[in-house]
């Protein structure tokens, strides 16, 4: 039942579309924030699209993911809709969490997204526990744990990798190394190699170019298949880059990285541009086709934003709901 490695035009175009959807979602979210229409704060995924899409395209809807504070990309890649996402970002009743979670807590159980997490590294236990449950119940779903380079400083990672390795749990630890731990360069906060951490527990660990969606998808597909057969856990470090600051308000960031560096990644290593060029080169799509994809998604996003802006807030009575689950 598992998906095969993406190898036909339809699959490739869907991957392109999904990456564009993430970028478009974030551009709109950023604009909502700048227009002061969005409460709170948010963390942009732009620049890292090939990671979420490359990984999630290797998963089934029944497979689980846990996400991070920078989680919109994972959410879209795992199959979420714009309308419910924008509604959640704006705290509206029709949001994925009825407006109670917001940007940092979107969960979409129907697509196996166990939720974003505002505690850095906070979901590593949850992902590993989901894998433990799959193993105990004989289910063959795999859980992917997304986290950033900054989260490798959290002790929880080492506790759960130890147990996952001991018990051969079907979990894949996906470390998105975007080069910065909040406002600090990764090499200032992480000693040694990232992959060496997993290797210490006897976990197979890989490093891959996170801007190359095909490479990410190829590796992940192989690991997912092996994890289903009990060969897990696995660890993957993806080298990528976040275009925005740590959060949307992190505008002046020259003190920790140069504008030249940002321009280099955006101009020469953009995952969407690279994959679009490959599609054209391979004759799988024309420039017009891709423009059409981007335009259509732009319209879809605009409509969803307008819908969310007009959507009602939750009734005040909801504030006390869902503190406790009703007992059966």
């Amino acid at each position: 039942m598992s998906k095969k490695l993406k190898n036909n035009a339809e699959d490739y175009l869907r991957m392109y579309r999904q990456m564009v959807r993430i970028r478009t979602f974030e551009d709109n979210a950023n604009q909502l924030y700048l227009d002061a229409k969005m409460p709170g704060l948010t963390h942009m995924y732009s620049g890292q699209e090939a990671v979420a899409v490359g990984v999630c395209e290797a998963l089934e809807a029944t497979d689980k993911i846990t996400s991070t504070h920078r989680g919109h990309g994972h959410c879209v890649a795992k199959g979420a809709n714009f309308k419910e996402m924008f509604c959640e970002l704006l705290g509206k009743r029709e949001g994925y969490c009825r407006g109670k979670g917001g940007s940092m807590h979107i969960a979409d159980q129907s697509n196996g997204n166990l939720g974003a997490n505002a505690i850095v590294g906070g979901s590593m236990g949850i992902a590993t526990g989901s894998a433990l449950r799959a193993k105990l119940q004989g289910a063959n779903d795999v859980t992917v744990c997304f986290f950033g380079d900054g989260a490798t400083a959290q002790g929880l990672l080492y506790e759960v990798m130890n147990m996952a390795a001991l018990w051969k749990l079907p979990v894949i630890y996906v470390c998105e190394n975007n080069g910065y731990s909040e406002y600090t360069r990764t090499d200032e906060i992480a000693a040694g190699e990232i992959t060496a951490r997993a290797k210490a527990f006897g976990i197979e660990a890989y490093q891959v170019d996170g801007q190359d969606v095909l490479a990410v998808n190829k590796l992940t597909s192989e690991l997912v298949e092996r994890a289903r057969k009990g060969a897990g856990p696995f660890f993957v470090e993806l080298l990528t880059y976040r275009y925005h600051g740590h959060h949307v308000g992190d505008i002046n960031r020259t003190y920790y990285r140069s504008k030249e560096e940002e321009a280099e990644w955006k101009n020469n290593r953009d995952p969407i541009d690279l994959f679009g060029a490959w599609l054209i080169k391979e004759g799988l799509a024309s420039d017009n086709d891709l423009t059409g994809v981007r335009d259509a998604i732009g319209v879809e996003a605009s409509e969803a934003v307008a819908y969310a802006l007009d959507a009602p807030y939750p009734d005040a009575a909801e504030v006390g709901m869902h503190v406790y689950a009703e007992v059966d």
Partner: protein
Amino acid sequence: MRSITFSQAVNEAIAEEMRRDECVFLIGEDVAEAGTPFKVTSGLVEEFGTDRVIDTPIAEPGFMGLAVGAAMTGARPIVDLMFGDFLFLVMDQLCNQAAKTHYMSGGKLQVPLVLRTNLGATRRSAAQHSQSLHALVAHIPGLKVAMPSSAYEAKGLMKTAIRDDNPVVIFEDKLMYQDKAQVPEEEYFIPLGEANILRDGTDITLIGTSSMRQVCESAAELLGEEGISAEVIDPRTIVPLDEAKILESVKKTSRAIVVDEGHQNFGTTAEIAARISEKVFYHLDAPVIRMGAMDVPVPFSPALEDLTVPTPEGVAENARKIVAGELVHAL
């Protein structure tokens, strides 16, 4: 009716629920062959195997996190936290993750797990193995907190907790594991949020949680000999709290002492006393008295440790004073 020990009661409850529901599993340090330091889970691994009675490394945040994830995806884990003092290690997974997931997801996700741990001083275990930290988790919305006061409560509350769809933290008094009580052979449940009136009285209400239930019962005995009629209430769970029963009793007696083994400052006694003062103030004929554990780290020396915990004599002394209209605290 047969008598069994507190630890047998817990063991029976877990075994019965594991037989009934394959989603239930037990996880923690030395829960399998070792059966925990208090031997509460002995025998379970023989019946259910190492897949469902899982020994973990000494990694409390790790296995707590695993339990949260397993619960979110359909399992019903029972987490064994060897000492209540280790709650501080699992706070993020318990309070930021387990407690909030249902709410943050707008009701979509549930975390049906039980965290078994313990409380209670006077075991000469010093400051890091003697704390009673239930107030800490009772403060967090989304968690339920049960405090069984005998083998009977231990079994009935555990079975209810395992079937509850929320994270429930159960604090067992570690000095009570060998105490016996009458426990029915047939299946029974104790609802969360239902206090137990152990003794009727008219002059004063003594509210005692967990180990302090027996302290209140002994104090009521002492007072009874002097003609003071004390009502004794065991809340059994502090979240949810059976406020109605407590308030009704205090309306009747006009006086109350709340006794609990957690630290007094900002504690369980304070919460219950405040609710009484807020809601039945005009029925009070004396200040509500809090009697918690002394606000010091638990000392090792028996000569010191015994001073930190409320005693029947201490409770009776305060009760005597307020029934006589004397002051416990100066004007």
